[in-house]
């Protein structure tokens, strides 16, 4: 799957930076060049990235204003009511740090890719939501964490939101969809969501399938086989429904979802681990490797 492919990620990040600054970045500057490019391009919002790692923040007036303006957040609540009180912040900061650490424990390469592509994890309260990602704020993850999550669930939620971010990156460098959001939201474009199990707009379900497949990988390499199993059936159904509407995807979008389908069929986590490390080439043909190995599980 492209979003777990280290070489694809590096190439895409490099492309965004080079297209913005008209020069190729040296490897040590790649992250800074990419995140500064995102800040420059998305002039309507603010990413408070720092050069030495992911910034964990408790206020971001620019992002809050934009989330409200774009109606991603409700408009009736004052911004200050969304901020976590100061006495909770140290504990929440530690929760997010531990969540990132739990990702490192499972896959250091995955943590590195998240570090490369995410500038800020912004913590804020919004009724009814545990967090989210917006196509207009690439490079930023918003979380509404609770201490009860613990490190593991926090890590899972970071990976979840990161996959949305990577799909936006994919869409930036090579569009995934062949029609605009009006076409994707039309009744005729609806398919069954892998996670909510009901009909949703095409792009929502496309993201849900990719996120679910990414979580199947994460759960499997973490040893949470039952959680991985539970996602397989609904996600395969969503992928099939997506593939039944090829006219809504570009070749790039169709290739990505075919990679998802191939992974769900094979559950070849060894190949994903190799992609994450940069030691494998993406199998664009959709065919199984000649001698698949590693963690392979039967469908639930």
């Amino acid at each position, binding site marked *: 799957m492209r979003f777990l492919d280290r070489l694809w990620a590096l190439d895409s990040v490099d492309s965004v930076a080079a297209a913005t600054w008209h020069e190729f970045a040296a490897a040590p500057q790649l992250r800074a060049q990419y995140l500064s490019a995102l800040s420059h391009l998305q002039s309507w919002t603010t990413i408070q990235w720092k050069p030495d790692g992911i910034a964990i923040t408790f206020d971001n007036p620019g992002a809050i204003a934009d989330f409200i*303006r774009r109606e991603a957040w409700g408009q009736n609540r004052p911004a200050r009511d969304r901020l976590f009180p100061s006495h909770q912040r140290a504990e929440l900061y530690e929760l997010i740090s531990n969540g990132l650490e739990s990702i490192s424990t499972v896959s250091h390469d995955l943590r590195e890719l998240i570090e490369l592509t995410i500038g800020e994890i912004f913590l804020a309260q919004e009724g009814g939501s545990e967090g989210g990602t917006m196509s207009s704020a690439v490079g930023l993850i918003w979380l509404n964490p609770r201490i009860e999550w613990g490190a593991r669930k926090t890590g899972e939620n970071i990976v979840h939101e990161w996959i949305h971010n990577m799909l936006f990156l994919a869409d930036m460098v*090579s*569009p995934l969809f062949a029609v605009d959001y009006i076409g994707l939201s039309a009744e005729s474009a609806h398919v069954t969501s892998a996670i909510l199990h009901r009909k949703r707009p095409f792009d929502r379900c496309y*993201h849900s399938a990719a996120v679910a497949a990414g979580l199947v990988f994460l759960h499997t390499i973490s040893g949470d086989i039952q959680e991985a199993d539970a996602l397989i059936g609904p996600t395969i159904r969503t992928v099939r429904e997506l593939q039944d509407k090829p006219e809504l995807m570009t070749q790039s979008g169709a290739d990505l979802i075919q990679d998802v389908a191939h992974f769900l069929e094979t559950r070849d986590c060894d190949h994903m681990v190799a992609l994450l490390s940069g030691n494998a080439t993406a199998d664009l043909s959709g065919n199984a490797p000649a001698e698949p190995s590693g963690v392979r599980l039967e469908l639930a």
Partner: protein
Amino acid sequence: MTDTNHEQLERTLELERNLKYVRQVRHDMDRIATALERYIEWHRDHPEAVAVFKMFLHSGEDEV
């Protein structure tokens, strides 16, 4: 063919291969820059069209 001619031919071929590679990279960069520009302009000009992916509280389900 003399050794010198052979070396010149090899060098010419290598230069052509490099030029072809540079042209391909430039073509790819132009394509990517165009896609990136469209993505950014779309979000700048259509604030109502932002794709929002929320995780719901309690259920842990994703809006998608």
